[in-house]
């Protein structure tokens, strides 16, 4: 499958005087997992919200599967799905009801079969008729992932999908995502504060700070290229540098 599944070009978002995202450009290819890293308030969630069409950019364009999100929002979002720890599914619906509800919105064919298959794939059979709100964090994360895969998206946006999960559950979730991404040749944008996780799953990373992309590259070689031992060391160094120094430092792209 040639071409980019996501093309973000000169994306910017200003809230009054505050610049949340500043002239950000990047692409994601099919079958590629890209990590979007950065400290709290760096602009990661703002960027994801603009890609999802729930936040209007101040400038720039977002294209999903070659469709402009601003002018062809519904068609572009039909190829997309997402999960975020801060956007839980309606807790007052059961697992099956949630999947059926979102399946209708995503125009999923053979909905009953798809729902049953996802419930099995994500080991949710015991919770099929249980309200999502009473499930544990790990179980809710699995339901959210099942929902995110309902429409077999070409682009999957994962905003801290393993946040607040224990290492065992987080590992399971990571494996599920990676297996799905490989099988379906999906492009994935993955934000995380867990550098071990990022190094393990991401083909490429983008370091965002103060709304700008400061670094991009292979998470395995990037730390050495910038004189750091690990990705976590690199993250801490970048996060602690004030904006004025970042502009003059060797990290500036």
């Amino acid at each position: 499958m040639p071409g980019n599944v996501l093309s973000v070009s000169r994306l910017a978002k200003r809230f009054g005087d505050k610049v949340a995202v500043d002239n950000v450009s990047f692409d994601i290819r099919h079958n590629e997992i890209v990590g979007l890293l950065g400290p709290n308030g760096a602009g990661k969630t703002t960027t994801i919200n603009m890609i999802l069409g729930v936040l209007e950019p101040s400038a720039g364009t977002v294209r999903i599967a070659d469709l402009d999100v601003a002018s062809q929002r519904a068609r572009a979002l039909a190829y997309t799905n997402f999960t975020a720890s801060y956007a839980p599914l309606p807790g007052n619906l059961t697992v099956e009801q949630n999947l059926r509800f979102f399946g209708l919105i995503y125009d999923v064919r053979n909905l009953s079969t798809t729902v049953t298959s996802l419930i099995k794939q994500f080991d949710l059979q015991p919770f099929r008729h249980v309200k999502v709100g009473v499930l544990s964090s790990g179980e809710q994360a699995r339901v959210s992932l099942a929902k995110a895969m309902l429409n077999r998206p070409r682009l999957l946006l994962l905003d801290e999908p393993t946040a607040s999960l224990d290492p065992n559950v987080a590992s399971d979730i990571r494996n599920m995502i990676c297996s799905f991404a490989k099988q379906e040749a999906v492009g994935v944008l993955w934000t995380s504060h867990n550098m071990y996780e990022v190094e393990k799953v991401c083909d490429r990373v983008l370091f965002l700070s103060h709304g700008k992309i400061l670094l991009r590259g292979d998470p395995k070689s990037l730390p050495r290229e910038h004189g750091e031992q690990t990705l976590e060391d690199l993250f801490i160094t970048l996060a602690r540098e004030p904006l004025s120094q970042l502009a003059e430092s060797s990290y500036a792209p």
Partner: protein
Amino acid sequence: MRLNHTAAILLRQYYLMRGSVARLLPLFAWVAVDILLWGFITRYLNAVSAASFNFVPILLGAVLLWDFFTRVMQGVTTSFLEDVWSRSFLNLFATPLTITEYVGGLVLTSIATSLIGLVVMLVMATSIFGLSYFNFGLVLIPFLLVLFLFGIALGIAGAALVLRLGPASEWFIWPIPAMISPFVGVFYPLSTLPQWMHYIAFLLPPSYVFEGMRAIILGQSFSSSQLLWGVGLAVLYIVLAGWFFIRVYRYAVRTGLLARYSAESAS
């Protein structure tokens, strides 16, 4: 516009109601209580007054129509508030669902829920208190249509207000029917009102319904052009409410309000 997207919004409300007595009961319990209360009041008034007319169609008919109107409005706002309470906006609007389909789903839900209330009211008012639809004739249909359209318009406008001002502003929209009821003459002729209230009544579609209802029951002349004016006003309010909702939605997308509805606790 895809019908299955709109149907999804209705399906969600069905799922919520199916499993919840707290949601099912208000669909008919309060209107049933209203019909009982006002039914007995009308019986009492018929017994003690020397009025030359029957209070049942005048008062009980007015209660029935007014409750139908409030149920229609609340059908839209309550469905919308379910999404506010469950913080579903991000999950909902980051999908191919369009705003027209979403609002269409709220309207569809309101049609379903208000019809349940209407049927309960009609059955009770007829079987217990002898309210006859023949008192109104076929004009009952346009009466209901005007109230339905205006209820939908107020429901959409109320939802837009909550979207714009935040979840706590739901308390602004519950009293809206009570606030407009003195102006539209639910229980008394508009001639009772002072002139300044007349001007407001003139702009409110239910005024034409309740004036028309009383005129028909009392055997007075009722101009169909007045009713047409009421229909026209109600359609105008629907258009304005839809425009207002879309404006607020776009504002919410531009300023980040929509994303913050879900992500307000996110880092």
